[in-house]
């Protein structure tokens, strides 16, 4: 499918400029590609390889290590139900079973209308609010089966303000040019920061 569009390519260049070495930008750029297309395409990986100066295989190598990057389309909403200890102690198995029943798909499956993909997830750092789940990486706490039914109905009707899969933060960091210290490749840095008092620069 698609390479980054012109607007996203500009964003990509801005992100790359924050790092001393361009490859460091790879994970944020993969997120950007996933935000654009909903998943990671081969064309996008080739484009990112050009942008950061590595081979497409290296991009795939990084991409395939991380669970959040999907190499095939998912539903509009990725529903991750936590199954680690604190949630397991308080009904995660039952919640997952209920979710499979309500959505009509097994774990890993996507509903026929392309709206939901159901996943069993590991600890989501909301252990005091068990059982918990995430929809596109936004938390829902102490979820009962009826809470789950309501959540699904709200997502179907568009009553929830949750961006579609691929979008994480809706706020982007922007470093104003006149405020930026700037990233320099490490091999070009030969001394301490200029603000450091000479007697301390050792």
């Amino acid at each position, binding site marked *: 499918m698609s390479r980054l569009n012109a607007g996203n390519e500009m964003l990509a260049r801005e992100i790359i400029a*924050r790092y*001393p*070495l361009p*490859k*460091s*930008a790879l*994970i944020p750029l993969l997120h950007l590609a996933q935000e654009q297309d909903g998943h990671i395409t081969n064309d996008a990986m080739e484009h990112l390889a050009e942008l*950061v100066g590595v081979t497409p295989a290296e991009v795939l*190598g*990084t991409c395939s*290590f*991380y*669970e*959040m990057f999907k190499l095939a389309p998912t539903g509009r909403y990725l529903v*991750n139900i936590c*199954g*680690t*200890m*604190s949630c*397991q*102690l*308080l009904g995660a198995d039952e919640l997952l079973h209920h979710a499979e029943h309500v959505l009509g798909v097994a774990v890993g499956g996507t509903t026929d209308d392309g709206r939901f993909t159901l996943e069993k997830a*590991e*600890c*989501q*750092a*909301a*252990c*005091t*609010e*068990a059982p918990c789940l*995430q929809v*596109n*990486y*936004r*938390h829902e*706490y102490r979820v009962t089966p009826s809470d789950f039914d309501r959540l699904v109905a709200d997502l179907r009707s568009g009553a929830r303000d949750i961006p579609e899969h691929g979008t*994480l*933060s809706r*706020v982007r*960091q*922007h*470093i*104003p040019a*006149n*405020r*930026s*210290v700037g*990233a*320099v490749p*490490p091999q070009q*840095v*030969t*001394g301490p*920061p200029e*603000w*450091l*008092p000479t007697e*301390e620069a*050792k």
Partner: protein
Amino acid sequence: MSPAGTALPHAPGFIANDTPRIVTSRFEYEDSYTLERYLATGGYEGIRAALGRPPAEVHGEVRDATVLGRGGAGFPAGVKWGFMPPNVWPRYLVVNGDESEPGTYKDRLLMERDPHQLIEGCLIACYAVGLSRCFLYIRGEMALAQERVAKALNDAYAAGYVGRNVLGSGFSVDIVLHWGAGAYVVGEETALIESLEGNRGMPRLKPPYFPAAIGLYGKPTIVNNVETLANLPWILNNGAAAYKAIGTETSPGTRMVAVSGHVERPGVYEIINGTTTFRDLLYNDEYCGGIRGGRALKAFVPGGGSAPWFTPDQLDLPFEGSQIGPQGSMLGSGAVMVMDETTDIPKAALSLTRFYAHESCGKCVPCREGGTWLERILSRVVDGNGTRRDLDLLLEVGASICPGDFPHASNERLGLSASPFPYQMTTICFVGPSAFAPVHSALTLFPEEFEARVRDDDPSDDASTDRPKGVPVELKGLTHGG
């Protein structure tokens, strides 16, 4: 201040109490994450105070305060900073916001509820150790934390708190927001650095044990946990002596602890370090208010999913690492998971072992294979398809990850004395041993629950286990070290 024991609706999970509040002081406010609220409540005064002093003195203040790292290992931040080799440039600070240890829920709250406090902590650390580039690595699955920190950084840059010439002092530093994509192992600091270099997030070979000498791009790098850095503004405002006046000499200040599982009021609490006991935390009305429904406590995990388990025998131990280690566990990342008398122990252990097996990066064979086998064998025991031999096999596979004595608590009921933390390991990082810890704890402390679950082996059936072919097997008894 909210009355003791108040749950705050805008800070899900957090429960306010009467403990001195060092890192959660703004959580009362619904707009605690805004620059306006931060400035109205003493924000950015700590960096202002720091900038009026030479960097070495600021470093000294933090070293004197003995801020123990809150990520898991508990190593003092000021000492860690001192491992930077002299006159090697550039230096980097990487903030570990990849919180994902099972049971742990505090760094996310700190990033969502008070991002400016974290940014100010980063500024103080960068100034103290003389560096101009900081990367703030937030876990991928935390969309709200990413939004709040991104907004806070944008506001702080615009207002002159971050970037070139901070507060007109000449001090200049960029703080770059970075975010991950789903991998527990990246919380290990050398894996975090690999990930920040754009690679697969696999831990690096050790030594060197600290990336202070050889870190990001092979340059001196400090990796600090979010909560660790969040303490710094308070220390610069109030001084190391005031910090050390709270808690104990070796574990000063406060720490955040998430208590989850079968308690009346699961929540994230800021507690006094060193003196608060597990009994205080689990039973006092100010904190969790007892086990749910007045039931009996069966076991608890004292320091995140990687930590060997405790039983009621250990309730009177305080949050003091030097006392927990000899008793067979660790305080880790400030996460207590509580199991009441109704808990199915093998199943609970499986929920943790499955986590670590799933999160193995695959670099070290004992973890990649051992974790997977532990999960498979334990699964069939939980499902009622295991045999007595499987229980020995679990310990045997575990011994290939952690040879020798594995730490465990003492237990009066079983007549066990404690075996101290830590363990030996055949892997680079703690993911592999962590897959074994719950299995070992559950088998050692609750052998009868496993015995009741398995059937006797059929002596004529050599294939009754999925034992890997060609691996020499020496059967061991259930008793630890047997």
